[in-house]
């Protein structure tokens, strides 16, 4: 039996302006699993991710990372197990050079400068970005920025990776590289996205989120192939499945 990497129980969250973003979300993700969180705009995907990394806190319900129940008090500690790649890499890359940006997390975690240099080298090598280590992040292409943003998170050796719209703004080649990269990871991956073709290539399971609730969950092939379900929740059955012949 595999261990549970993350579990959410009956999560509720209402924004101060009265928007009910989450209305009773529950799910469980096994260690090493890649799952997709799909849903239209405003379905609650981003709000949910912020709860999973301990930046927002449950108003009702619980978030468990491994064996720990996430609270305001233990959030800083619990966050170490979770790495989040944000939608806009410009929000995530703020240091003057790529290497310093990747070192930011490890240094905050109390790693010695010498070790931090090693973490930086291995994280950049992992995403194939060693050659840009001394460049300023704002000068990189969108694809490079995304890869570096991923490296900043990998350098902290998280067990769980959260990705918010990882393929947005990427050209097809950049998107392809990202997909290959994400497939190669052994981490538990939770990917919030509209890019259902990417989901088909990376994930085994999918949660459909709508109106702050999980309305469907199951294997990717089954859920995303359900034309009616997809249309009912602002989604579309991906082409890649239409043309795939059943084996």
């Amino acid at each position, binding site marked *: 039996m595999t261990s549970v990497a993350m579990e959410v129980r009956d999560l509720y969250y209402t924004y101060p302006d009265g928007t009910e973003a989450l209305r009773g979300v529950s799910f469980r993700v096994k260690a090493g699993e890649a799952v997709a969180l799909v849903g239209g705009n405003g379905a609650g995907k981003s709000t949910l991710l912020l709860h999973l990394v*301990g*930046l927002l806190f449950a108003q009702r319900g619980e978030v468990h990372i491994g064996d720990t129940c996430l609270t305001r008090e233990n959030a800083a500690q619990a966050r170490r197990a979770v790495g989040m790649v944000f939608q806009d890499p410009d*929000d*995530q890359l*703020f240091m003057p050079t790529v290497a*310093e940006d990747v070192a930011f997390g490890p240094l905050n975690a109390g790693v010695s*400068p010498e070790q931090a240099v090693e973490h930086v080298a291995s994280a950049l090598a992992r995403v194939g970005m060693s050659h840009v280590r*001394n460049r300023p992040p704002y000068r990189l292409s969108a694809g490079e920025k995304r890869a570096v943003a991923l490296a*900043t998170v990998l350098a*902290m050796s998280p067990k769980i990776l959260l990705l918010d719209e990882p393929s947005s703004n990427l050209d097809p080649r950049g998107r392809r590289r990202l997909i290959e990269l994400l497939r190669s990871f052994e981490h538990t991956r939770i990917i919030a996205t509209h890019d259902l073709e990417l989901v088909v290539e990376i994930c085994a399971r999918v949660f459909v989120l709508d109106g702050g609730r999980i309305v469907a969950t199951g294997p990717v092939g089954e859920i995303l192939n359900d034309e009616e379900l997809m249309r009912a929740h602002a989604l579309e059955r991906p082409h890649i499945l239409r043309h795939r012949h059943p084996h």
Partner: protein
Amino acid sequence: MVRTGSVEILKALAVDWISIGRMDEWARRDSPVHRLDARAKAIVTLGFIVAVMSFPRHDISALVPFILYPVILTSAGGLPARELFKKILVAAPFALAVGLFNPLLDRRPVALVGPLTITGGWLSFASVLFRFVLTVWAALALVACTGMYRLVAGLERLGLPRVFATQLLFLYRYLFVVADEGVRMKRGVDLRAGVKKALTLRVYGSLMGHLLLRSLDRAERVHRAMLSRGFDGEIRVIRSKPFCAKDWLFVGGGLAFFIIARAWNLASAVGRLMTGSVS
């Protein structure tokens, strides 16, 4: 015209920021000046600015020896002098505006050069411009041979409160991002304005308000991204080498020279020496 002004300024800042980005490239080069500790360069440059600004307003000749400092930074640092001067010119209108009324207000004749009578006003005007060139040149050369990031880190170690240091760095990092957003919004307004003047006061107010809200949103997202990587109020960097002998030498030599040049008019001393030896 006036209303579109600040968007134009934003744009100019954005463009200028890109060239500040180029200053960061210069800062990544290597030279004896680059290798000096950022704190040493900051202290000496501050001393330089204080010394230059402390002269009486009609002095020019006594200021001349001070040109040595920016010249040394520029040449020893291998900085492109022409590009630096372009940047000085960008800020020149401010100095012109400051000194502009001096010739009108102060018409006392102070010197005769051939048939020309030089008034005190013109002299102080020239002095203002000269000081402006000296100080801006030194400050730009300092940034160009140190890099904004190392400079701010150095200032922080000299006692600049951490909050200000962090603010400076983020201003530096995101100025362009925000200015770029402003430029894009302005473009959106222009495209839908047709032949009418696009930016009425109403539109302008709304545009600036949106820019502020967007910046706040971005600030929140950046903060979240930082928190998720363990940010606790302190930005840690992989520290560079400690303050060493050549840094002390640079600070001592630089400050001593400024004190001597401030106390005695070296230019006229050299002049007397020359004419003395001739006659």
